[in-house]
């Protein structure tokens, strides 16, 4: 069966993923913690709906006038002494990066994790011209040492315990390190410090770019993004073209929404606004600063009434933590950079390929938890429905999916069966493994929000929680919230009616 190699591989991975209790527990542990953290942080802050609405309005406004604001940003950044570049696609962005690396005679690049760099598969490209790419986020560094795929879960190194990490790091150190978190982190601190001081180039992403002053803003907890943007001589910032906000005043709204939604923090430990390379008389900061502005499919969403709002996304990961499907089986990367509900929409839409439709969309499209979690109110659940419709319209809906959708509708339509059948996780899992092949693009949450997992919750240790989680997993997941259940039923009813009346899609030009 020559043709089925890929499928076999995917299936093998799927089996692996679903049998891996440890990974599952870890993901549930963290997503739950983050979700509760968010709830606590938003309740405490108060008026959350008003803040969400404001965040949405600012993002809508900026994207609706993106040609103006992006242009303003570029001109201001140039005036600050930044070398600004444009890349229509990943190849161009990689090409520019390599060109800069060659002209900087770089032997190594220190990186702070960013989604855009993942999107471009940069490490590989850099290695092809003999430039060492060093990941400097703690977990990311451990994974890189282990020679494993960049993280497939929430906390990239969660599948390694202290003892394994101690072994890995001891090898690197040349002497034996104790399996003690503080000692291990201490070693990494020292080791990476050398790397920061050695590297010719530092590379970061960009959370927000301020149009009126040409500044770029980074949120993080470890301090490595600050290192990377302060110590090396040359700095490269990779920036999605939609990262713009008009002013520093607008940043207050984003800084209110982003950390609270991502990790439940009031603010990440560091928020940095960088305006150009170091000034002549400054004794630190990069001599040369490059910003590469990347389209790579983003502009396809502009002017598309159903999907334009995707560009409002501030990459907080709250929709992932809210997603029952992701919580249950999540954390296993199957080749896609963007995961969870936003990934389900963004990935096919970025790739211009509606055929890349996957099961998570089926499950998420009816639930709406992602929309409620989203700090800028992106109607992800609607988009999932649009996406599916487009796929069916373009003839890419597979028979299995059609059946699956019917089955789903049957379950959903019969409310008396809901109570028994709809234990969320089970439903999610069923949908995802249906047909025996996992096609989901559940990528890493890690890296999704670069400042990542730093729960600021009442201390309940990992190990304390472990047993309870185990129990919970065995018992299946909690009953669906009644409001969610109602919404799902309502949607199914509406859809059935529409279908009966022969209403297909509505106006997507």
């Amino acid at each position: 069966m020559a043709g089925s190699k890929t499928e076999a591989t995917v299936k093998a991975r799927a089996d692996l993923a679903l049998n891996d209790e440890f990974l599952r527990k870890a993901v549930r542990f963290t997503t739950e913690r983050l979700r509760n953290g968010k709830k606590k942080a938003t309740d405490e802050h108060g008026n959350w709906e008003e803040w969400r609405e404001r965040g949405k309005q600012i993002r809508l406004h900026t994207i609706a006038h993106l040609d103006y604001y992006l242009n303003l940003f570029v001109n201001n950044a140039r005036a600050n002494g930044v070398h600004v570049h444009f890349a229509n696609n990943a190849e161009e962005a990689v090409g520019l990066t390599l060109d800069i690396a060659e002209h900087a005679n770089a032997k190594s690049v220190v990186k702070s994790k960013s989604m855009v760099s993942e999107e471009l598969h940069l490490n590989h490209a850099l290695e092809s011209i003999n430039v060492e790419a060093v990941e400097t986020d703690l977990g990311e560094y451990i994974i890189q040492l282990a020679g494993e795929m960049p993280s497939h879960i929430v906390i990239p190194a969660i599948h390694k315990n202290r003892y394994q990490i101690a072994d890995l790091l001891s090898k690197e150190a040349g002497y034996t390190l104790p399996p003690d978190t503080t000692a291990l982190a201490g070693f990494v601190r020292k080791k990476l410090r050398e790397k920061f001081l050695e590297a010719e180039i530092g590379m970061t992403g960009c959370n927000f770019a301020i149009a009126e002053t040409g500044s770029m803003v980074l949120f993080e907890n470890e301090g490595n993004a600050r290192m990377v943007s302060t110590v090396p001589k040359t700095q490269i910032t990779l920036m999605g073209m939609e990262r713009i906000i008009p002013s520093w005043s607008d940043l207050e709204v984003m800084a209110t929404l982003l950390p609270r939604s991502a990790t439940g923090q009031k603010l990440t430990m560091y928020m940095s606004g960088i305006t150009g390379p170091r000034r002549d008389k400054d004794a630190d900061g990069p001599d040369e600063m490059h910003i590469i502005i990347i389209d790579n499919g983003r502009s396809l969403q502009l002017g598309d009434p159903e999907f334009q709002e995707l560009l409002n996304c501030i990459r907080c990961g709250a929709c992932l933590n809210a997603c029952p499907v992701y919580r249950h089986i999540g954390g296993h990367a199957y080749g896609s950079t963007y995961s969870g509900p936003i990934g389900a929409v963004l990935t096919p839409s970025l790739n211009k390929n509606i055929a890349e439709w996957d099961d998570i969309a089926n499950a998420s499209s009816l639930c709406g938890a992602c929309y409620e979690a989203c700090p800028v109110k992106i109607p992800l659940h609607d988009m999932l429905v649009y996406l599916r419709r487009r796929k069916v319209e373009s003839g890419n809906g597979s028979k299995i999916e059609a059946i699956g959708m019917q089955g789903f509708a049957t379950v959903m339509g019969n409310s008396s069966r809901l109570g028994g059948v709809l234990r969320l996780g089970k439903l999610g899992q069923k949908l995802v493994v249906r047909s025996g092949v996992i096609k989901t693009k559940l990528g890493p949450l890690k890296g999704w929000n670069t400042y990542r997992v730093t729960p600021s919750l009442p201390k309940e240790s990992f190990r304390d929680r472990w047993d309870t989680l185990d129990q919970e997993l065995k018992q299946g997941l909690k009953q669906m919230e009644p409001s969610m259940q109602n919404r799902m039923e309502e949607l199914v009813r509406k859809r059935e009616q529409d279908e009966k009346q022969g209403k297909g899609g509505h106006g997507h030009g």
Partner: protein
Amino acid sequence: MADTHKQWLEKLEANSRTKQEQFMNDIAAKLRHPRMYEKPQHPFRGAPDFWNTFEWTEEERIKGFTENFLSVGGHVARLQTMEDAKAYIVNKAEEMSAKYVVRQNEPELAALDLEGSLAESQVSVWNTDADQYWRARAAEADFGIVMADHAVAYTGSVTVLSSPEKGRSVSLLPTVLIIIIPLERLKTRLGEVLVTFDEAGREKLPAGIHFISGPSRSSDIENDLTIGVHGPGIVYALLVG
């Protein structure tokens, strides 16, 4: 490669300017409007109105800042005068046997005469010798000492701005960070600080604006909170006034 670095950069810039036009035109076309050159009305700029009038009293600001900073593992001391701050720093340096201390080159810090008072430590003053590799000096320092340019009570954050006299590394590379916050610089909301950057405008902004809300942290090993993985693991905020 015959081209000099400068020529190469010029070539890149020329490419970039051409591409900029295409990029923006393409965006405008997709948005189905003519290229916009005029600043659009932005009715939703900044935080909601109800928030902009929110203000804590000084006591509330001190309390709020302290609670927030403590909750993430930072330390706070409430002091009356700069003399007290000096005594506090000297005491800490002795207690922890700090060998290398680096401080910003600011008049308030110079007035403390730490150089004369810390007999056991080598105190360097940022960027006072052009031949030093200052990043390395900061990287080996046990203590970094800085003045806060602003502070925000509601989020428990301190803002430091870069300049020739104020290195970004001094608040980042040392193991222990001590930040002196004159009380009058402690505001309630983040927006009160952010708006000053809008008011200053592009040309007056420093290269680095950093908000620091506690010690560097990570939970990448077994989901255990680890402090000080890259930035300072011990941070003292001294509220003075």
